[in-house]
């Protein structure tokens, strides 16, 4: 390996031992470090874009002094982002005697591996579940489907793998297999170091340091979870001399709850951000589970999704409908040295066009503020995609209405997949606002909604389909508001066959 850019030292914990690598380029992926630098070949590359899960590894991280385990895609994760963490791969979890970990043994016993290439990735997702439950106890089939939605298998048809997820908790944990939490925490604490000020891959631990670094390095590539920027490296072959990673900034790792809104820090993973949103609005649970696969949600951040402004980013239509705003921050020089300056704008005002926005070169997305639910709120978000799980939507429509006394008192509607940016359906909102909540109103608004956007045809759907479905989704919202049950397959997930004997 001859990295073309200067590298820096990377340290992480593997099997309780500290691994130190010198001269690792700032844009090198964790997968390449594992396979090419460390010659650890258990972890596979299947797609290089975080869609197949063959490269899944588990990270162990100290969060408030506790060891937290998360399965992530190593193929699009920058190696330096795991500096100071523990990394587990499929070759790490068996006992020193060779006895398999329950996540592995269950896959053998259930005949969950055929060609075996996706297997280490599945094993690591199972290991993540094992660590995040009581040793795999009580995992339902539904939970297994959700947690394994980021792992593709082309051989088995998944049934044996879902069986393995549900059965691993019944298997004994061989001696030497368990994660030694105490030793790992100690090793991680020993790794803690003061971040160097001038390295190619910079991961400041405070907000002010982050903003100062941003001001000092306007050309550095900013990353959060890197689940999109990672593809610029693996697929577009971009190189970054300097990377600025926002995820270590302590202040931004929090979700804060206020009287009228919650504030989600830009370093909060999608997993944790969605958990906070679902806590406020339980009806968002399925939508949150359909947002990419678990390993992407564990790495990716809501802040990154928003800052990126991709027209297919699924979180923006929802956030627009919720009336969310973004807080942009920068370091302002003052006589005393400097201070944090900030401004706040509505999310839909952030974007100016395809992947362009109003941010200054020295600004970063710091917080996303989401208003809390009101009593009269009716909220739904609909995602239409070819595949139910882990797919990018052809259409995403989020509708939030406040209806009181049979009249629409407020309306905010966000739409994705219909324009170059996530968009607010202002004409449709106007058509609803102040109107009685009746079928006639809805019929008229369906026409407005269909007329409001000129979606394109692409590989996800035709313009005609998008046009038709936009209106139909508003109709679905109306029908659901009228108490019609069982008209959305999302809620009928696990729909039972009629007359089938168990």
């Amino acid at each position: 390996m001859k990295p073309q850019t200067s590298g820096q030292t990377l340290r992480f914990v593997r099997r309780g031992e500290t691994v130190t690598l010198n001269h690792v380029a700032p844009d090198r992926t964790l997968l390449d470090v594992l396979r090419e630098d460390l010659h650890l070949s258990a972890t596979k590359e299947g797609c290089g874009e975080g869609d197949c899960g063959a490269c899944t590894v588990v990270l162990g991280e100290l969060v408030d002094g506790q060891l937290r385990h998360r399965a992530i895609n190593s193929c699009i994760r920058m190696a330096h982002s795991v500096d100071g963490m523990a990394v587990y791969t499929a070759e790490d979890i068996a006992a020193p005697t060779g006895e398999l970990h329950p996540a592995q043994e269950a896959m053998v016993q259930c005949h969950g591996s055929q060609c075996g290439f996706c297997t280490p990735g599945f094993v690591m997702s199972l290991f993540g579940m094992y660590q995040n439950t009581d040793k795999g106890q009580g995992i339902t089939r539904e939970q297994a489907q959700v947690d394994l939605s980021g792992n593709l298998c082309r051989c088995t048809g998944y049934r044996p793998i879902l069986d393995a997820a549900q059965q691993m908790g019944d298997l004994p944990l061989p001696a030497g297999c368990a994660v030694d939490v105490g030793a790992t925490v100690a090793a991680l604490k020993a790794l803690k170091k003061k971040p160097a000020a001038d390295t190619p891959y910079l991961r400041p631990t405070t907000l002010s340091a982050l903003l100062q670094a941003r001001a000092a390095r306007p050309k550095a590539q900013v990353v959060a979870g890197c689940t999109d920027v990672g593809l610029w490296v693996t697929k577009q072959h971009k190189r970054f001399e300097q990377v600025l990673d926002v995820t270590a900034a302590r202040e931004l790792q929090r979700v804060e709850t206020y009287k009228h809104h919650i504030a989600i820090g830009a370093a909060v993973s999608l997993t944790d951000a969605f958990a906070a949103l679902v806590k406020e609005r339980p009806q968002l649970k399925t939508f949150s589970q359909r947002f990419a696969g678990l390993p992407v949600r564990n790495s990716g951040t809501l802040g990154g999704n928003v800052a990126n402004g991709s027209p297919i980013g699924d979180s923006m239509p929802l956030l627009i409908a919720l009336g969310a705003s973004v807080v942009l921050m920068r370091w302002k020089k003052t006589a005393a040295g400097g201070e944090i300056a900030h401004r706040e704008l509505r999310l839909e005002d952030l974007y100016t066009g395809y992947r362009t926005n109003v941010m200054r070169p020295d600004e970063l997305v710091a917080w996303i503020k989401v208003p809390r639910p009101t009593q009269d709120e009716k909220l739904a978000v609909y995602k239409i995609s070819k595949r139910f799980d882990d797919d990018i939507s052809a259409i995403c429509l989020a509708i939030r209405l406040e209806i009181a006394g049979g009249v629409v008192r407020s309306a905010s509607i966000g739409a994705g997949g219909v324009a170059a940016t996530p968009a607010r359906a202002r004409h449709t909102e106007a058509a609803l606002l102040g109107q009685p909540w009746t079928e006639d109103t809805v019929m008229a608004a369906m026409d407005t909604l269909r007329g409001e956007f000129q979606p394109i045809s692409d590989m996800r759907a035709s313009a005609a389909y998008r046009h038709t479905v936009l209106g139909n989704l508003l109709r679905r919202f109306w029908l659901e508001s009228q108490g019609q049950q069982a008209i959305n397959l999302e809620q009928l997930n696990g729909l039972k066959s009629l007359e089938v004997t168990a």
Partner: protein
Amino acid sequence: MNAPDLKLVADSTRAAGVSRFHESARAQVAGTATYIDDIPEVRGTLHAAPVCSPIAHGKLKGLDASAALVLPGVQGFVSAADIPGDPILAAFGHDEPVFAQDKVLFIGQVGGLILADDAMTARRAARLVKWDIETLPPVLTPQEAHAAQSYVLPPVHVKRGDAAAALARAPHTLEGRFEVGGQEHLYLEGQIAYVLPLEQNQWWVYSSTQHPGEVQHWVSHVLGLHNHAVKVECRRMGGGFGGKETQAGHLAVWAAVAAQKLKRPVKLRLDRDDDFMITGKRHPFAYSYQVGFDDSGLLCGLKLEMLANCGFSADLSGPVADRAIFHADNAYFLEDVAVSSYRCKTNTQSHTAFRGFGGPQGVIVIERIMSDIARHLGLDALDVRLRNLYGIENRNVTHYQMQVEDNILEPLMTTLAQTSRYRERHEAIAEWNASSSVIKRGIALTPVKFGISFTATLFNQAGALVHVYTDGSVQVNHGGTEMGQGLNTKVAAIVADELGVPFERVLSTASDTSKVPNASATAASSGTDLNGRAAQFAARNVRDNLASFVAGLDGCGAGAVRFVNGQIISPSKTRQWEDVVGAAYANRIQLWSDGFYRTPKIHYDKVTMLGRPFYYFSYGAACTEVAIDTLTGEYRVVAVDILHDVGQSINPAIDIGQIEGAFVQGMGWLTTEQLVWNNKGYLQTHAPSTYKIPATGDVPEHFKVALWPEPNREDNVFGSKAVGEPPFMLGISVYEALRDAVAQAGGQPDAMNAPATAEEVLRAVQGF
């Protein structure tokens, strides 16, 4: 749930017939099973990346790699000028240049390779190579190609009786037209080859291939060498599904050309997007037909035209399109029939083998027709299917003149109808739909009858080697390849039982052209039938040697010596296997042998397509229930029941795994797996981000598989039947269930092409 009874493994004295774990399972879960990219690299290894055409059709005037070559870390560029042997691949139609020369024929066509110190540098540099192309208009659809009579191979027509006359006198007729999309293999391990130059112009090729013999043949052909100078090895593939039959050969050839020019080991591992852009897929098909039938739904005349989109070259399109003809009957007797098959040449990837190999594209037509007849007459589709099944005593000869001798279709389908409660559910669904405004359910029960043998008769041969070492351990090597299907596990079980030793005593080793030569592709579901039998014969030869030896010691006939439970038992004495092996070695008895097998009974005329192309048929049926959303076209598969015929199973868990995996893959083909080429011939769905194979959430909780309890009626290894491909076609039950739901929603099921994406379903439901 189909979890096999694990107790059986412990109790059994035989290796076959029980659900043994895959021979590599423990290594796979531990991450220690070696795939080609995991082999420690030899010093000096270069990494290659392909240079791909950005234009679908044009005159190639030149390639300029100068900008790529100055990039630090780049070590070279190879193109057509660097080929020492024939610049045309030794493929079926001899119509594929190794590297593009004079013209480009699809977006993704490889014009050369960039070699660099690491893969990312090579990939970055490959994009800097400039193509000088004079653009020509591309042909992108089979209909355009057919209109222009642009074919990769001549049309084929198969007839019986007089279809036109039968249609003219039929009480009812229907006409139809529809299209079925292709399918990307999406093996989780992408295509890869690693080529090592050896001494004296000899070559060692690691290839992730279903056909090492062909890789050897192609590499030697292009390097201008004899076959014996090239050794090809493959321990396992990370999935194949037909996609590593011919396609793997291209990579090995490209890497070999580079390795001979630069005199360095060369590894070519395709990036997933390049893999999508370069390699062929399942053939998309377009159909038109006229069918006649009576009031009972009995067919009395079929004219069928099939346009296969073959892409830019013949590859395996001939036998694929032939198999579509052979399976246009599926389970049904076609009395007066005329099938025309056109092998259309288009400016896309050259479509290739994919599980079922044209069979699915044949079966889906007649299954669509059965449902359409039923709807037209107001009958239950299952009744129309049963009415048209092949008979036992009569109505039992296929349109290609093969007698169906082993027909179990009717008992199999009626058994499944009972166990799945098809008729009760069919009624309950109609009732449920009447009161459900938005969600509508549908159900379908469809069969499969699949012909087992390579239609190219010469491929139905296999060889194996069984080595017994002096400590009693056994190694088996055969011409087949392991791609996850459990071939090595089954073959090891066969050898273990033939020698009467425990399963664990037998080790299967990597496919290697220097061990078993001239082996056929592991394809056509025939891996165990052919290689298992060859290995059985090899083991039997060793056993016979040992039996004669023991007979000489004990003064009995060799036939009286038995081999069971690791013991060798003559009428007078019981000895341990290891003791006899050691003694036999000391007495200079040969402890290893070859075995060879060729499938009996098969023959057919390649011109008229008449004869017996298949040794036997494999059968199965699936009953699937779905629910669709009439506002969006989204759907869920609610329940699946399968009854499938694997004969006497050599390993029930592995066979069930094949059935479940094939079903889900077939479901993917017809539901979410949509290949989209734009109007320039650019494949827009070229990665798993945009091309969606089924995920965990697409598999219903009610997913039951049962095995038909009857051995193969033909003399096949251990009474088993082939299993790899036939259940793929059971996925058609999902498609027909969706069409049933569309019909129940008052839509137009005739308007629904495949894949039935949510958009396609909504178009059929409400039109837009």
